[in-house]
């Protein structure tokens, strides 16, 4: 536990000096707040911008952040030094994962406060966001474990992030895309957020998110076994 807390403290100190990462955490909640307060169009669904940006936030921020953190630590050899100092890979993952999860949940809290929800709906909103953030973290950790450098990680994270983050938006305009998008966790997050306050059952959405998480965990295990955190040769991409 001590090692996990040390990793979290280290990440917090680092974030305060890393504007690029810090901006990512605050950009989507700030945009949602600005749009919600400044754009009022007649006939626009309730909490439109909150739900739209929340789904994008879940698909982008935890995923790119954890992939960037792990790949940077691998590239700069700091991860190797931590592992030599008796920090286990799982303690490291728990540390950086908890840190990203905590900061993303702060953002989720801002979205939650921006939306016009009842107390019960707010609880459900946060649970849905937590599930999405966890799925994103698993996918990002897999990319980080499989990449040898930040550059290599970015070449994977950008297309994957665009795919998962924009599918929910595209699916609202095209029913064919919606048929495929429904199997992604980000689309299910959007649908679950849409269904807040309605009678529709969330079972299918929860199942799809769970299957996504299992697949991402499997991908992480596969890449971690091939590459680990110690060796210099990336399993996913070459530099």
């Amino acid at each position, binding site marked *: 536990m*001590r090692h996990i807390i040390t990793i979290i403290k*280290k990440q917090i100190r*680092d974030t305060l000096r890393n504007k690029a990462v810090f901006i990512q955490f605050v950009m989507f909640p700030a945009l949602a707040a600005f749009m919600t307060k400044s754009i009022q169009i007649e006939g626009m669904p309730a909490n439109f911008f909150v739900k739209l940006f929340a789904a994008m936030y879940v698909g982008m921020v935890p995923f790119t952040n954890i992939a960037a953190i792990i790949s940077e630590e691998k590239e700069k*050899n*700091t991860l*190797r*030094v931590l592992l030599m100092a*008796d920090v286990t890979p799982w303690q490291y993952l728990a540390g950086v994962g908890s840190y990203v999860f905590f900061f993303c949940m702060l953002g989720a809290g801002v979205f939650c406060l921006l939306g016009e929800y009842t107390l019960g709906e707010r609880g459900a909103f946060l649970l849905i966001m937590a599930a999405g953030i966890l799925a994103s973290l698993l996918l990002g950790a897999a990319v980080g474990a499989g990449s040898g450098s930040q550059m290599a990680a970015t070449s994977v994270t950008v297309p994957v992030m665009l795919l998962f983050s924009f599918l929910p938006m595209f699916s609202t305009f095209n029913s064919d895309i919606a048929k495929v998008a429904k199997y992604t966790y980000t689309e299910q997050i959007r649908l679950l957020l849409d269904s807040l306050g309605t009678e529709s059952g969330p079972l299918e959405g929860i199942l799809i998110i769970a299957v996504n998480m299992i697949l991402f965990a499997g991908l992480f295990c596969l890449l971690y076994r091939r590459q680990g955190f110690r060796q210099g040769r990336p399993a996913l991409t070459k530099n």
Partner: protein
Amino acid sequence: MTTLIRAEHIAHSFGNQKILEDISFTVERGEVIGLLGPSGAGKTTLVNILTGQLKATGGSVRTGEEGRREPACLETGIMMDSFGLYERLSVWENLRIFADIYRVSGERIEKLLDRTQLRTARNTAVNKLSKGMRGRVNLCRALLKDADILYLDEPTSGLDPATTWKIHQLIREEREGGTTVFLTTHNMHEAETLCDRVMLLNQGKIVEQGVPGDICTRHNSRGEIEVTLRGGEKHVIPNAPESEILLSTWIREEKILSIHSSEPDLENVFLRITGRRLCD
């Protein structure tokens, strides 16, 4: 002397490429042992095996004091060739992370900052430090733990002479404090001045090992002595009876300024054995 590390017939390969072959040696408590070899000789691979970062494909490494019923777990400090520092964090913050992991007090960090002359850079971000200062932070981190054995992988590689001298001083202080130091280098002067024993590694094999002076004497196959006369004139003459008359004359005439045996240095020993230079 107590043996801390006993390596027997270590071998390692990456695929079909043999990196290390039949490496055997011991490391005694309190000594500075140097592993010399050119780039690509297998030095870092051997250190990675000794520090448990890599599993050898053959042979065995036994660490801990021999003779004890329970093999003691050695406290190790490791300074790698790459710095591995958090660049956005300050010197103190970098050391604090590892002090927390090792359960070391802040007081020890402060003492080490003084010893490594990093006090003034305490709150400076690592990305604003010179290479030499980063090297000292790296060494400082390796010294945080009160280690039984320090692994220093090319600690002065690419550093300026002043920083190199400071790091050498710190290594000597550690040795005087009873710490065993395992030093890899391709700098033969570093090895000659710091090490009690050296191992010469070439293409994954130890080609020679022993006390630096003894190795050089062993390879003094030329059997010559070098005489410098007053006025700077130098003569290399056979270390044999036929030189007796000439030497006696010079001594009588008080012409001799210095007289040296002409054994090779470690660089030349390595060159003679392998046909390669250490700095290749």
